[in-house]
C-alpha cells in the first residue's frame, strides 16, 4: 500500500513529497465546518425561497429534503476522495487524478463559476439589506445599492488576500452568529418561548398547498439545491488543513448535519408567517425571507438579530466563495490549465493572491449587471454539473484504486448506492431547471462544450503530461 504524509505541517501538497513554498497548513476541523457552513448558510437567508415560487410551500419542503439526500451523498463521496487527494483545488484535483485533464478543467470551471456567482448573489443581497435598513431608518427614496455591493466584494477580497487563517476565523465567528440567529427566531416565533405567530394551516390551505400540483415538486428541486449549495467547498481547504484525513470528513459531515437542521427550521418559520406567493418571489417579493419573517414578528430585537444574521450570512458566504473560487483558479493556473501567471503564491501571506484579485471584477460584472434569480441559476447549474461528475468520479476511483490499494482517510459506506442515488437526483434536478429556465440550461451547457473544445484543441498543449499526476499512488488498475 502506498503511503503519503498528507498531514505534514510544513510541506504543501505540491509534488509527491511536497514543498515548502505553497499554501500554509494552519486550519482545523472547526475552520472546515466554518468554510462549508459559512458558504451555504446564506442559502437559508435568501434564494431557497425561489423553490416556493416554483412549486409552493410543500414542494419546497420536499425539495429541501431530497436536496438534503443529494448533498449527503455528495458529502459522503467527497469525504472519501478528498481525504485521499489532499491538495488545493478540491474536486478539480480529484478529477485530474481520477478521470482526466479535460474533466478536471471543466470541474475547475464549475467550481469557479458556482462560487463566483454565489459571491455575486451574496453581494446583491447585502446591498438589498442595506437599502431596507436605510428605508426603515427614515431614508427617503431609493438607495443606490451599487456602492455597497462593490464594498462587500472588495473588502472580502482584501481579507482573503491577507491570509487564510484570519479569513476563516472571521468566517467561523460570523457563521456561528448567523446560525444562532435562526435558532433564536425559531424559538421566539413558534411558541417555545412566548406566543406562537405560526399560521401554517391558513397560509397553506386550498390552492396554496400545491399550486402547480406534482410537477411543482419536481420544479422546486431546482432551487432546493440552494439550501446546501457549496458544502462541497470544504475540499478546497485540503492543502491548508493540519490533518486532512480527520478534519475534512469531520468538518464536511458535521456541516451537512448543521445545514439539514437549519434548512428545515428555516422552511418551518418562513412558510408559517409569509404568504407563499410573496415568499416565492425572491426578486419582487421576499429577497431575505428570514428577515421578512422577523419583520412580521413585531419584535424589534428579532428584526435587528435577523438583519445582522442575514448580513453576516452573506458576508460569510461571499468570504468562503472568494476563498474557494480563488483556490480552484490558482490550482488550474499552477497546472497551466489556465495561464501560469495565476499559479503564484504571495511571498508573505502565502495566499493565491493573483487569482483572488482577478476574480474580483468577474464577480462585480455579475453582481452589478444580472438579476438575482439568473445569478443563482448560473451558480446552481455549475454546481449541478459538478455533482453529476461526482458519482462518475467515485466509481472510477474505486475501480482504478480498489480499497486497500492506497491509504484512504475515510471510506464511505454502501458504495455504489450513494453514487446511484446522487446520479438519479441530478437527473431530476436537470429536469427541474429545464422547467422555467431551459434556455439558460442549454446556454450553460453550450458554454461548457465550447470551452471544452478550446481546452482540448488549444490550451492543453501548454500542460505537462506526467507532471500533472502528483499523488504518490501506484499505477491505476486497467492502464
Amino acid at each position, binding site marked *: 500500500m502506498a503511503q503519503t504524509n498528507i498531514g505534514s505541517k510544513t510541506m504543501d501538497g505540491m509534488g509527491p513529497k511536497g514543498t515548502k513554498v505553497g499554501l500554509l497548513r494552519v486550519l482545523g476541523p472547526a475552520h472546515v465546518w466554518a468554510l462549508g457552513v459559512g458558504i451555504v448558510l446564506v442559502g437559508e437567508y435568501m434564494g431557497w425561497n425561489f423553490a416556493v415560487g416554483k412549486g409552493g410551500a410543500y414542494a419546497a419542503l420536499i425539495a429541501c429534503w431530497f436536496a438534503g439526500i443529494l448533498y449527503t451523498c455528495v458529502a459522503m463521496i467527497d469525504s472519501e476522495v478528498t481525504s485521499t487527494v489532499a491538495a488545493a483545488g478540491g474536486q478539480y484535483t480529484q478529477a485530474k487524478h481520477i*478521470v*482526466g*485533464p*479535460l*474533466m478536471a478543467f*471543466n470541474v475547475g470551471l464549475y467550481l469557479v*463559476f458556482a462560487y463566483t456567482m454565489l459571491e455575486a448573489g451574496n453581494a446583491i443581497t447585502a446591498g438589498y439589506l442595506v437599502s431596507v435598513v436605510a428605508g426603515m431608518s427614515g431614508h427617503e427614496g431609493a438607495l443606490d445599492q451599487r456602492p455597497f455591493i462593490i464594498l462587500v466584494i472588495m473588502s472580502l477580497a482584501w481579507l482573503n488576500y491577507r491570509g487564510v487563517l484570519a479569513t476563516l476565523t472571521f468566517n467561523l465567528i460570523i457563521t456561528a452568529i448567523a446560525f444562532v440567529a435562526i435558532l433564536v427566531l425559531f424559538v421566539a416565533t413558534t411558541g417555545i418561548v412566548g406566543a406562537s405567530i405560526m*399560521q401554517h394551516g*391558513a397560509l397553506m390551505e386550498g*390552492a*396554496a398547498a400545491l*399550486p*402547480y400540483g406534482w*410537477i411543482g415538486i419536481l*420544479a422546486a428541486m431546482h432551487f432546493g439545491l440552494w439550501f446546501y449549495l457549496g458544502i462541497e467547498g470544504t475540499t478546497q481547504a485540503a492543502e491548508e488543513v493540519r490533518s486532512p484525513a480527520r478534519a475534512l470528513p469531520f468538518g464536511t459531515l458535521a456541516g451537512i448535519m448543521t445545514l439539514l437542521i437549519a434548512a428545515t427550521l428555516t422552511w418551518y418559520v418562513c412558510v408559517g408567517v*409569509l*404568504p407563499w406567493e*410573496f415568499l416565492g*418571489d425572491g426578486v419582487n417579493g421576499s429577497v431575505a425571507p428570514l428577515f*421578512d419573517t422577523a419583520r*412580521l414578528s413585531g419584535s424589534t430585537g428579532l428584526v435587528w438579530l435577523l438583519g445582522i444574521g442575514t448580513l453576516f450570512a452573506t458576508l460569510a458566504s461571499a468570504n468562503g466563495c472568494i476563498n474557494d473560487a480563488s483556490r480552484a483558479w490558482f490550482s488550474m493556473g499552477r497546472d497551466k490549465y489556465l*495561464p*501560469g*501567471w495565476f499559479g503564484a503564491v504571495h511571498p508573505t501571506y502565502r495566499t493565491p493572491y493573483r487569482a483572488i484579485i*482577478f476574480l474580483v471584477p*468577474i464577480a462585480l460584472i*455579475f453582481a452589478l449587471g*444580472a*438579476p438575482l*434569480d*439568473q445569478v443563482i*441559476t*448560473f451558480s446552481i447549474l455549475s454546481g449541478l454539473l459538478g455533482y*453529476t461528475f461526482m458519482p*462518475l468520479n467515485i466509481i472510477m476511483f474505486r475501480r482504478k484504486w480498489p480499497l486497500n490499494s492506497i491509504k484512504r482517510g475515510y471510506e464511505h459506506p454502501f458504495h455504489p448506492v450513494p453514487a446511484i442515488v446522487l446520479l438519479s437526483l441530478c437527473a431530476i434536478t436537470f*429536469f427541474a431547471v*429545464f*422547467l*422555467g*429556465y431551459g*434556455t*439558460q440550461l*442549454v*446556454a*450553460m*451547457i*453550450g*458554454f461548457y462544450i465550447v*470551452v*471544452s473544445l*478550446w481546452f482540448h484543441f488549444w490550451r*492543453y*498543449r*501548454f*500542460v*505537462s*503530461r*506526467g507532471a500533472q499526476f502528483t499523488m504518490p499512488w501506484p*499505477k491505476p488498475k486497467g*492502464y
Partner: protein
Amino acid sequence: MAHYTPPVQGKMGQLIDVIVLVVLTVGALFVPLWMGLAGSSKTVATPVENPTWETLGQNPVQAAQYEALGYDPAGAHDLILARFDYSFSVSAVLIMVVVIVVYYALMLKFSESEYRDVIAEKFDSK
C-alpha cells in the same frame, strides 16, 4: 511514452487566453439575458380588474399578512397571480437530454485519451 515538453506561452498569449475565457463566460449569462430568452416565464394569465383580496383568492389570514407587509390588493396583484408555464414538448426534453449526454460523453472520451498519456508518461517512462 516519450516525455512531452510543453511550449512556453508568452505573456500576450496568456492574456488572449484569459480574454477568451472571460468573453465566453460573460456571454453565456448575458447573451440569453440580452436576447430576452433567459429566466422564468412567469406571467399573469388572467388579470383581475379592480382586485380585492377575495378576487385574488386570499383568505383573511393571507390578506392580513400582505397588509402587514405593506401591500394593498392592487399592489399585490401581479405578485399573487403570476405563474410559471410548465407546459413543454417532448422534443424539447429530448433535446436537453441529448445536449447533456453529448456533453458528458465528449468530455469523458477526450479526458480518457488525455489521461492515458498522463499515466503512460508518469508510470511507463521511468
